[in-house]
């Protein structure tokens, strides 16, 4: 495929960008504001400041941002705000990377290099900048698609006299194959997930980890996050278990208790009605 030529989007300053960002960061109509020790303003502005390196991300209390973000998510309703939420999620997930890194038990389980990598500030800047560039260029995609949707192309039924000149149809589908095709067509499309075992680090199913966590918590005794990840040998499993907890939290199946930032995280089973069928769709957002 062709390589797009280099360099015109000025990402370090949204106002000068060759492609205007979808919303001006200064007056983004977003309802979510971050208010922490060093910073008070819309979430997008936080991102913008970080990209300008005017604010050191490590000086922003991530737990405070996370708390605000989660409470903001709780208020979100309706499809209109889903986009907004997913946009926040992208940035929040990047910010959360560091929080997850600090949640990971220090010691033999975690590769020290990995933590160093996750903590590398510049890498975070790089990712935010990169994300920002794609976010900006996506506005161009939206505009072009909208403009092109309004166009009308000539696309008419072939005249009968030409129709008759088509090669005769070769039908090779048996009745059973036809029914199988119907079944295929009616089945919601799933992404193929073949060959994942070949991966150096096999993918971890959030759903499976959720099932594991549910099994541990359902008996009633609250457990700490540290206890929940005891015995997990791969970082991926730890992360998946953390995400599974967030998912369960979203379904109001668990509640969290953390007395101080970065303190021990206690998880309590809080589901009033729980059926294991709930697990089926769990992690669907992650395609697991």
């Amino acid at each position: 495929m062709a390589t797009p030529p280099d360099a015109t989007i000025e990402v370090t300053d949204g106002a000068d960008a060759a492609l205007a960002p979808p919303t001006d960061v200064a007056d983004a109509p977003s309802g979510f504001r971050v208010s922490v020790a060093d910073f008070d303003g819309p979430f997008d502005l936080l991102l913008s400041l970080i990209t300008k390196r005017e604010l050191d991300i490590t000086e922003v209390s991530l737990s405070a941002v996370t708390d605000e973000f989660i409470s903001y998510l709780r208020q979100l309703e309706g499809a209109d705000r889903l986009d907004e939420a997913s946009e926040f999620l992208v940035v929040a997930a990047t910010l959360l990377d560091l929080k997850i890194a600090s949640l990971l038990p220090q010691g033999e389980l975690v590769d020290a290099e990995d933590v160093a990598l996750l903590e590398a500030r510049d890498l975070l800047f790089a990712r935010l900048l990169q994300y920002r560039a794609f976010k900006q260029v996506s506005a161009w995609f939206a505009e072009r698609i909208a403009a092109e949707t309004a166009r009308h192309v000539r696309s008419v039924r072939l005249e009968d006299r030409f129709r008759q000149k088509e090669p005769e149809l070769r039908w090779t589908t048996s009745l059973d194959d036809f029914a199988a095709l119907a079944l295929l067509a009616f089945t919601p499309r799933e992404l193929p997930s073949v060959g994942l075992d070949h991966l150096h680090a096999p993918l971890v199913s959030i759903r499976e980890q959720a099932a594991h966590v549910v099994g541990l918590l359902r008996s009633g005794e609250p457990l700490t996050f540290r206890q929940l990840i005891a015995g997990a040998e791969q970082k991926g499993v730890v992360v998946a278990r953390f995400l599974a907890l967030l998912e369960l939290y979203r379904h109001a199946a668990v509640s969290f208790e953390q007395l101080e930032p970065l303190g021990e995280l206690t998880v309590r089973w809080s589901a009033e009605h729980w059926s294991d069928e709930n697990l089926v769709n769990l992690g669907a957002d992650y395609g697991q």
Partner: protein
Amino acid sequence: MASETLTDTAAAPDGTDTTPERGLPDGVELARALEAILMVVDEPQSVVGLASAVGRPVKEVRASIAELVADYDGEPAADGTPRPRRGFELREVGGGWRIYVRSELDAVVRDFVHTQTPAKLSQAALETLAVIAYKQPISRGAVASIRAVNVDSVVRTLLGRGLITEAYTDSETGAIHYETTELLLTQLGINSLDELPPISPLLDDGRDGFDDVR
């Protein structure tokens, strides 16, 4: 010169079209609006229908169509400007006007169609056909939403192949509903749709119109 507005420099029927035109954007020549419509419609269009679409008197539309016919046929314009005889023509068929390939060029187009059309149905076409077979009569939009892809061109192919046909048009929505034909039964080697193997929904996830799949 390439004028910015859609004025008809060579093909103005006469001087009458210089007044502002009702029902059309400013500066849009009636003939240009008509040829735009005729380029995208599938069915022959009556003069009356066209007239109401562009908000102009039937008489004017009729004159403009006659002028377009002459234009595409390569007759010189009223002012004597020569015009090419186009590869397409505007013909009145069954009480309506539609653009067709000029018959002298049939051979060229026939060869083109012959080499372009595969003898076998594509996977996409087969799946769309299967959806229609099991959920007929069904509109194109409903098929598209089940298949999660645009099926316009595939439906055209299936219509052309005689495997499906138009069952009826919903009087409220105007959506054409399609059903399968005897030809499909013949190809499948069955006598009636009842002989289609039952398919059970893999996932009864409450998707609209999914539970009534036979």
